[in-house]
């Protein structure tokens, strides 16, 4: 799956409420979408800004058939993968802007 398809699918998933958040160790309050600190509409607007050169992908370290995407639009860091729903691992501002 390429960037365009990943972006289309993540936008659709968020718009339709088909997303979940992983809950990990570390700073558990950092994912602003998970914490309700931004709205779905705001999340969509942030993701929408992402351009191809601001995205990278790599295999999930638990399952290499799953592609993990990192979108870095402006000063944001968004990490997710698409399996059934969109699973967000991170959704926060980059450290420099916090």
């Amino acid at each position, binding site marked *: 799956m390429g960037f365009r398809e990943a972006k289309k699918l993540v936008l659709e998933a968020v718009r339709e409420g088909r997303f979940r*958040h992983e809950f990990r160790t570390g700073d558990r309050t950092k994912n602003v979408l998970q914490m309700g600190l931004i709205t779905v509409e705001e999340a969509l607007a942030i993701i929408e800004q992402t351009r191809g050169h601001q995205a990278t992908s790599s295999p999930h370290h638990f399952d290499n058939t799953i592609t993990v995407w990192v979108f870095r639009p402006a000063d944001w860091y968004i990490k997710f993968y698409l399996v059934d729903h969109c699973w967000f691992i991170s959704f926060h501002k980059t450290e420099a802007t916090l």
Partner: protein
Amino acid sequence: MKTIVLEGTVERVACEHCGRFVSATYAYGPVELEPGLVVEDVMRATCDQCNRVIATAPQSAHRFKAALEQKKHRRTSLRIPHELQDFVGQNLSAVGADSTHVELYFRALLLACYGHEHEIGLKLRHLEDPVLNRPCRDTVNLNLNGNLIEVLESLARASEITNTSELLRRLLVLADGELAGAAQKECARLALAYA
């Protein structure tokens, strides 16, 4: 319901502790965001192997938000002379608010200081008034949110008064003088909002 996760829903979720994708079951329960901050009634998935919380559903985001906002609130108690308690009640009554809703008046007072903390703080530092020497017989309990705490902290820095009770008592004196108009305007606005 397309977007709401129901209790008992089972999904495949990555579990950091187990180091692989596992089966996880959703149910309402507590989630610890940080030491001492536990959010109740969150729709979350626990790993069927290690029982740790490994995912949350977006429908519970509002609970996290409320908990984080509550964390920013500061509860404080202060002692004031009965004369100042009367002054607050009189001002609340004048805008049609419940005269016992003392917290509303303090919120209005701090809002009236917003943007002018430095100059007001300097005035507070040098303020003198006989009422400040009266015995403090009444207790006021305040629950202030993040923005008002910032105003209070800015006033404390500018006035160099670190005692919150002393700071607020002096602010009340100022509310009977040059801050009267702004305080009353904010009080009327808040009273309307709370009505």
